[in-house]
């Protein structure tokens, strides 16, 4: 039995220590908002927060996150500036890559002091959106940064 702290809740999963964190989240904990895209950390669809830092869950084992706080897209607050900016700017098309992208941006936006939109945009080459929403992602990042600064989040 492995214990996992996800979105502020303690879970138990009957999986080996080297089980993939991504698939344990999806298939055992039924937190399917975190997506499988490539399995080798090349696309960013599986991005989650481990102790507040953006990480690719596809390349991690459950053992590696023992005792750490995991946040998935389902656990990111509804009023998080990135989630609100994504709705305001109508970023999403198919939406499959967006939970991972939102998690990555949210981790960057929450740094103190809040980085500039351009600084964040320059760190987004390791995610893929096949629908081609990149222009709106850029807009979303700008709006999220503005919201975060204004609200001191």
């Amino acid at each position, binding site marked *: 039995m492995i214990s996992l702290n996800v979105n502020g809740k303690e879970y138990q999963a009957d999986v080996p220590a080297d089980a993939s964190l991504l698939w344990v989240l999806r298939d055992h904990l039924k937190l399917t*908002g975190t997506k499988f895209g490539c399995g080798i950390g090349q696309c960013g669809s599986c991005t989650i927060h481990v102790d507040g830092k953006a990480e690719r869950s596809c390349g991690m084992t459950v053992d590696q996150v023992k005792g750490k706080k995991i946040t998935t897209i389902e656990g990111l607050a509804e009023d998080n500036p990135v989630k609100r900016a994504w709705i305001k700017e109508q970023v999403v098309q198919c*939406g499959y890559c967006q939970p991972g992208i939102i998690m990555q941006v949210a981790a960057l936006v929450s740094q103190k002091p809040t980085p500039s939109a351009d600084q964040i945009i320059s760190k987004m080459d390791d995610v893929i959106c096949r629908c081609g929403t990149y222009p709106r992602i850029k807009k979303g990042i700008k709006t999220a940064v503005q919201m975060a600064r204004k609200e001191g989040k």
Partner: protein
Amino acid sequence: MKTSMTRRTFLKSSLAATGLTIAVSVSPFGYRLLNASQSKEALKGFKPNIWYEIAPNNAVTVFIGSSEMGQGTHTALATIIADELDADWKQIKVRQGPAAKEYHNPLLGEQLTVASAAVRGFYDPCRKAAAAGRSMLVKAAAASWGVPESECDATKGTVIHKKSSRKSTYGQLCLAAAKLEIPKEPALKKEGDFRYIGKPMARVDIPAKVKGTAVYGLDVSVPGMHYAVLARPPAYGAKPVSKNEKAALNVKGVVKVVETPMGLAVCAKSLDAAWNGRKALDVKWDKGALPQMDNAFIEKTMMAELDKPGSKAGENGDAKKALEGAAKKVKSTYFVPYVAHTLMEPINCTAFVRKDQCDVWAPTQGQTGAQMLASEVSGLPPEKVNIHTTYMGCGLGRRAAPDFVVEAVIASKATGKPVKVVWTREEDIKYDFFRSATCQRIEAGLDGQGQLTGWSHKAVAGSILTPINPKAIENGVDIMSLWGLMDFPGSPDGNRILYEIPNFYLEFLISELPVPVAPWRSVQNGPNAFVTESFIDELAHAAGKDPLEFRLPLLKESKGAQRVLKVAAEKAGWGKPLPKGQGRGIAQHHCFGTDVAAVAEVSVNEKDGHVKVNRVVVAVDCGLAVNPLNVEGQIQGGVINALSTVLKEEVIFANGGVKSANFEDYDVLRMSEVPDIEVHIVKGNDKMGGIGEPGVPPTAPAVANAFFNATGIRIRRIPLTSKVVLEALKKA
């Protein structure tokens, strides 16, 4: 979004008179409207495509058959109904309809979300259905107050009698309205009175997608669900020579190994067990049909096929004679490689076959095909097969193929369990049905004044129709492979090269290469437009004319193409000087009823061969834009897909199979490579065109033409990788 609505529920809920339900049935001969609380007899045989329901709790629910893969169809169709019904947008809910004959797209004749056809196919019928409902609600209100209908107005889900300040909500009126006869020719609103159509409406699917609660195919979970993964051949046509089934079955959790036409399916209680079982199965394969096939072989083969006799696909005038008499001749050969779909959600499907029922949960663009094949494989009649369409992690045409449905149904039938088939990214790329490579040669003639006199065109490509509808191939001509080069019967859109070429000849040969191909956003319009629009640019240069000025007089009959070319050129500052090492290129293409022109600006680094696209300016004429915000998003997406193909994408083959495996060796466009993309919507066309795909075709040639403008070197083979560019610069 719930996906469990079926025709049976439609009939049941309608007959129970729970509110006002208006359905519309569309056929190639027109449409019929129906008030669902009419007698049972009227409902018999009535096959609605789309329907909406107004309930006493004031909710308006719209049921839609088309799939939502990110293109915004659900929002657009609901917008049309909400506007014409004069409902309040806040009342509107959207539900995905089931697979059923009821949902066949009037432009396509089956339930299929392709060809950028969903919104334009249902625009008129949706408006009529909504106008009928509005008129019935007004009539019911007027009768209840004993006032003339003409004194009552419908607005935002309420009918108001101004004189007496009385009002009733649609929810309050729906039961009385349901008892009324449905008007045959309900009056439509004036376009100027639209409240939602033409406005940047927020999409209905976005909140759930941002929360992470939207259910995609891979997220489906059914009680008792097992998993299956397939061991697939490493080369085309390869057959298994040995396997260790015992070892696979010894893996904890593995329950069965099942043969399928696509490979050996290892079925297990968990995904890990299935993957471990596949490894243990250790299938050894023979060398397959064409072990020597790699990229060089493919290019050489297609070039050689270009010299073999093909089939005449189109002709007007006498191209041969015109070329003989030409003052100047230009002849060029182009090659576009195979590219993959790489949808972010790898291919998957879940099925549960029982004695008397089969359920399929599929991220599919083609419900009709899915239902037909699930019925064949399960042995159950189609009406016992329920297709539950999930959200899709992108579609791009790949999900119109039903191969994954077949795999899931076979695995479920063999195990008696609900089974989810999961593809890895590596499988998703290696076993994709690619956008076909194509090799094309054009020879054209100009007269002494630089006027185009004749055009002789030969194309070789894979056949898209062979696996899906081989009967549609007449005399060796696959119209889908030639999309954008010739008109074809039965299509509501013009699909030919728009330029008015006085003497024209088009010949086609289906390539013998064993690589499977399928539609890829805009089908072959993408590669075909790359060829024609690059070549037109070559002709302009040969004629000593500006590329825009050369094109316009050849498009006298195509006002839409003229409009978008002029707008894109003007907005991009066509003709304004650029710094050294930079260039500007233009291209246009018409497909799916929509005209698009693009101007691209590029920088070329002659030292390292790097091409950077700095800016793309697009003008689009799709007639009425139901949701301009979505039109912008779809065009930008199409442009980005096309930039990815012109700059980076090419499937790598080796040893008779696919070598590319993941984003490490099949990379797509990334954020820092995306230029500013301006989209200008030009409303000129009377007829509504599609919007999901037309952004692709003009983009790649605009970039290649800009490269020529910057360097004086013509690139006839994409992608424009540093290696290709450096070689071209060296040769020049």
